Each structure stands twice: as structure tokens, then as C-alpha cells.
């Protein structure tokens, strides 16, 4: 997929670019409003990761520009402003999602993947990963054509891993994805372990491979290598 990262904070832009650049993605970057507008005027992207507070202009105007020109690029707004106003305005203007800073790169990746998947929707909204097949509408998982029951959190975690395959996903990121701000992080690590244990067990029992590896006690990595 082809992604444009519009972010004026160099450190963050570089990290996102490094995280997204890989086997299936091409990344371009813009560091201010003018260069971002120039890029979206000429090229089309699967998803644009857009910061709102930019030098020389407001990121919302880029969303407007896309809309006015009937460009169908996916847009994910990232902003330090957690104001509902901005969120609603952004979504009303045609942005697909809104993520508040600070966020984990894995969360960003998962959101971007979801947007791109929705955009390239062709007939059936199914996600296939080797022998695992996920019906995103019905939230049902099949392994080797046999239905496997997952709880809501397990299902969410499985999708999160697939979106971040090949990457080490930290426990912090997993906890935040599953529980948001509602539980203290330190409480969660045991629960993460038991959820992951369940996912592995269910996949293996259905005849699938064990794709989840523990990564040096910091997190987990979903890999088909």
C-alpha cells in the first residue's frame, strides 16, 4: 500500500516512516501544509496519515481539498488535540479515523490497515492470512475452514497482530489496544499473557500454526517465518 505521512515533528515522522516501510508498503512524507497539498494534488495514496497542526496551514484543509476534487484517498488524522470538535469536523469532512497523540506505532498501523482494507473492499470483506480466514463483518474466524470461537478481546488482538505482522508489539501497546485507559498497565501483563495463551491454543487446536512469538519479555511478534 502507498502511504503519505504528513507530520511536522521530524522525530515522529521518521519513526512512522521506518515502521511502515517494509514488504507491503511504500511511504512518502511531507513536513508542512504546502508540500502536503502539492503531493495530494498530484499523487493518489491508499492512506494519508495527517497531522492537523502544520506549518502554513491547517490539516483539515487538506481533507477538504481531497473531498472537493473527489479524491478517494483514505485519511487518518493524528492530532495532539483530543477535542471532539476537531474529531467531528475531521470525520464530517471525510476523514476515516482519528487518533490522538501519543499513540503506539502498532496502533497506527492497525488503524491504517483497517482503513486501507475497507477502501479496497471487493465483494467480500474477508481477511486471509495463510490458513486463517477472518470475516470482518461477522467477526468470525475460520481456521482451515473450521469455525473457531474467539472472545471479543481475543478477536481484536488477533486482528491487531495480523496488521502488525513481523513487528514486535510491546505489552504496553497491547494493553492500550485492549483496555484503553481503563486499567493500570501494570495490572495487565498477566491478562495479556492469558489472552495470548488462549489464542495460540485455539489456533493450534484447530490445526493452524503457532504464529505468536514472545519477544524478549517486552512483547510479542506475529510472524509466519
Amino acid at each position: 500500500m502507498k502511504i503519505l505521512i504528513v507530520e511536522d515533528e521530524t522525530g515522529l515522522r521518521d519513526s512512522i516512516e521506518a515502521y511502515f516501510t517494509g514488504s507491503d508498503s511504500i511511504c512518502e512524507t511531507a513536513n508542512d501544509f504546502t508540500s502536503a497539498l502539492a503531493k495530494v494534488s498530484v499523487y493518489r495514496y491508499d492512506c494519508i496519515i495527517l497531522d492537523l497542526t502544520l506549518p502554513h496551514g491547517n490539516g483539515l484543509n487538506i481533507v477538504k481539498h481531497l473531498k472537493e476534487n473527489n479524491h478517494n484517498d483514505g485519511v487518518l488524522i493524528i492530532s495532539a488535540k483530543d477535542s471532539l470538535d476537531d474529531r467531528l469536523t475531521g470525520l464530517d469532512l471525510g476523514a476515516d479515523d482519528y487518533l490522538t497523540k501519543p499513540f503506539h506505532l502498532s496502533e497506527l498501523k492497525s488503524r491504517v490497515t483497517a482503513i486501507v482494507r475497507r477502501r479496497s473492499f471487493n465483494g467480500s470483506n474477508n481477511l486471509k492470512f495463510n490458513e486463517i480466514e477472518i470475516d470482518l463483518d461477522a467477526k468470525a474466524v475460520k481456521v482451515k475452514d473450521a469455525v473457531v470461537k474467539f472472545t471479543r478481546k481475543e478477536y481484536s488482538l488477533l486482528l491487531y497482530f495480523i496488521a502488525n505482522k513481523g513487528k514486535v508489539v510491546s505489552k504496553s501497546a497491547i494493553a492500550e489496544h485492549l483496555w484503553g485507559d481503563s486499567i493500570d498497565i501494570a495490572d495487565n501483563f498477566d491478562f495479556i499473557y492469558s489472552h495470548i495463551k488462549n489464542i495460540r491454543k485455539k489456533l493450534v487446536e484447530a490445526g493452524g500454526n503457532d504464529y505468536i512469538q514472545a519477544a524478549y519479555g517486552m512483547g510479542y511478534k506475529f510472524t509466519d517465518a
Partner: protein
Amino acid sequence: MKLFDKYNRVNIAVTVVIMLVTGIIYYYTISHILTNQIDKDLVLEENEIFSYVNKNHRLPDVYESNHQQIVFAPLGDKNTARRFLDTTYHDSDQKDLEAGRALISSVNISGQNYRILVTQSKVETEDLIQIIFLITIGVIVSLLVILIVLNRVILKSIWKPFYKVLFQLKEFSLAGHATINSTPSNIDEFTELDQAVISMAHRVKSDYQNLKAFTENASHELMTPISVINSKLDTLVQTDEFTDRQSKLLNDIYGTVTRLTRLNKSMLLLAKIENGLIQDNQDVDIKEVIEECLYQHEEMIHQLNIKLVTDLRDKHLQANKSLVEILLNNLLSNAIRHNHQDGELSVYLDSEKLTISNTGEGSFDFQQVLKRFHKSDGSEGIGLGLTLCKQICDNYGFKLHYLHNSQTHTFSVTF
């Protein structure tokens, strides 16, 4: 003591003293003048006796006139000094004693000295003085009454602007939106007071606004560097293999960054609520929010083997959904985290009230934990949880109560 009472007390005391002193002076002056008048009458009588004696060379017949008696007594060779004196007067008709004034004098008739005693009754004089005294007392009393009433009326109306300003000051709240209105007055002091109060309120409010704006901006600005740290960490863990020691360090950093983020988010949220920046009211299904919260905590409830009792009726509110979520999540999260193994948690919701009770050790001072950054011993939180709850409740006019009895903590929110 009210200014009015104080003023009245001083005023009345001074008035009474002045009136009394005036009355006394008045009494003596009048008394002196009237006595002089009587003395003149007595001298007149004496002269009449002298002229009679000169003409007839004998004492006049003694007759009793109204309020006047004349008595002659032979003195022989002796003489007597002429003098006035206060004495008693024997009224022959009424047989009683009256105050009187007498003149003692002497006359010589053919070598024989006679003492003359002319006595006159002072009863009319006394009556006159009494009437004057009564009138004076009447004037004093009516003057006092008029003074009190007048003071009350005038002071009330004069001080009205003052009380208005005072009332506004009492109602003044930093966080409130009400401003202090100008109170017009034609009294310079009150106009000055009014202006001083208005400018002070304005200054205090703007200082407070600046402080709040600073908190909000500072929290805001912090979000960007935190997100850079976060993303760098995420990138770092992709790079290479790590030793146990390194991964332990990385975990600690992750945990700390998360805490920092939460702290910052909470401060930002507090500032926003205080600034009244959170509006976007929508219909919130309280029951649904509670159920979602409990679902989020299911692992913890399961792990502690907490017995969960719920009785949730339908309840909808007009509020900002994320604020309600934070409120309920904080309360439920506390009730679960501070519970003990095999404890109990009950959640009751009806249209008026949400009650969350949990078993748990110890007790705490509710007012104390409402303070910012207050942490109980062994708490892992950032000490803003209940402060936020209180702030959210205040924002929507809910009442947050805490009750503790033998091992059970109960929080209730009255909508």
C-alpha cells in the same frame, strides 16, 4: 454587630447624654429664674410693710392671702439679718406642707424691733418645672424614636449599594461564569468600592484563566514530545535482539511513558472541564457504559474471584460520553483494584442513583482523596482519579458520596 446597630447605639447614647445634661441645665436655670421671681414678690411685700409702718407707725394687720403668709415677732433690742431662705409652707386650707420660699427681715417701730417673716408657696413654680420636665422627657423620647426610625430607613437605603456589592462578592466564584455587575451609587465611597471590586474580580478571573490556559497549553505541548518518545521506543524494539536486562529496562521505560501520558491526559482533562470546554452533550446509556466497564475489567474480577452483584435499570443522561465513561470507569476500577481476594462488588443503578459498594481493607478520608495528587499508601495510580470523578460530578450537578462501614466502601452518584 451590624454597622446599623453599632451606629445606632453610639448615636442614641450620645443623644441621651446630651439630652440629660441639657435637661439638668434647663431645670436649674428655670428653677433659678422662678425663684428670683418669687423673691421679687417677697421684696415687694416687704416694701409694702415698710411703707405701711412709715405711714402708720404700727404693724399692719396680718391677713392670709393666697399662698402668702406674713408673721411678725418682737425681737426686743436684738436685730436680725435680712435673708432669703427655702422653707416649708403651711397651707391653712389644705393642711399639708408645701415647698416655700421665705424672706426674713426686720422693722423698727418706735424703738421696738420686729422680725418680719414673709413666706410664699412654691407649689406653682414646682408644677411649672414639672410640666417643663415632662415636656422635655417627651421631646427626648420622640426624638429618639424618630432618630431610630430615620436612621434605619436612611441607612438601609444609603447602604443598599454596599450590600449589593457584598452579596455579589459572596456569590463570586473563580470557576463560575457569573461576573460582578456594576452597582451604581451616588455616594463616592461606594462607587469607588464597586469599581475596586469589579477590577479585582476581573483581575483575579483573568489570572485564573491564564493559569488554566497555561496548564492546558503545557499539557498539550507535552503530548508531542511524549509521542516522539513513544514512537522511538516502538521503533527501538524492532531493531535487534535484546538481553533480559535490556528488555527489563525497556519495559520500565514503556511503563513510565504510559504513566506520563495518563497523568498528562488527566491534567488536560481537568483543565478542560474547569474551562468549561467540554460540552458536546449527547444521550448516554449509563447501563451500557457500566456493562462495558465491567467487561473491560472481567480479567481482574475473575482473577480476584470477586462476587459481582448487579441490578441495573435503564438510565439515560444528557452528557459528554467520554466524561461519563471516565467517571464510571474510575469508580468501578477503584472498587475492583482495592478489593481483596474472594471479595464482593455490587453495582446498583436506578433512575436517581448509582451505588457501587466493594469489600476492601482500611478506610480513608474522603475529602483528602479528592485533593489533587493525593495517593493512598500502596496506590499505583497517579492520584487524580477521584479528583476527576468529583470534577465531572460537579460539572453535571451530580452528587458524589462516600460511605464506609466495616470493610465495605460505598460510593454513590446521585444524578
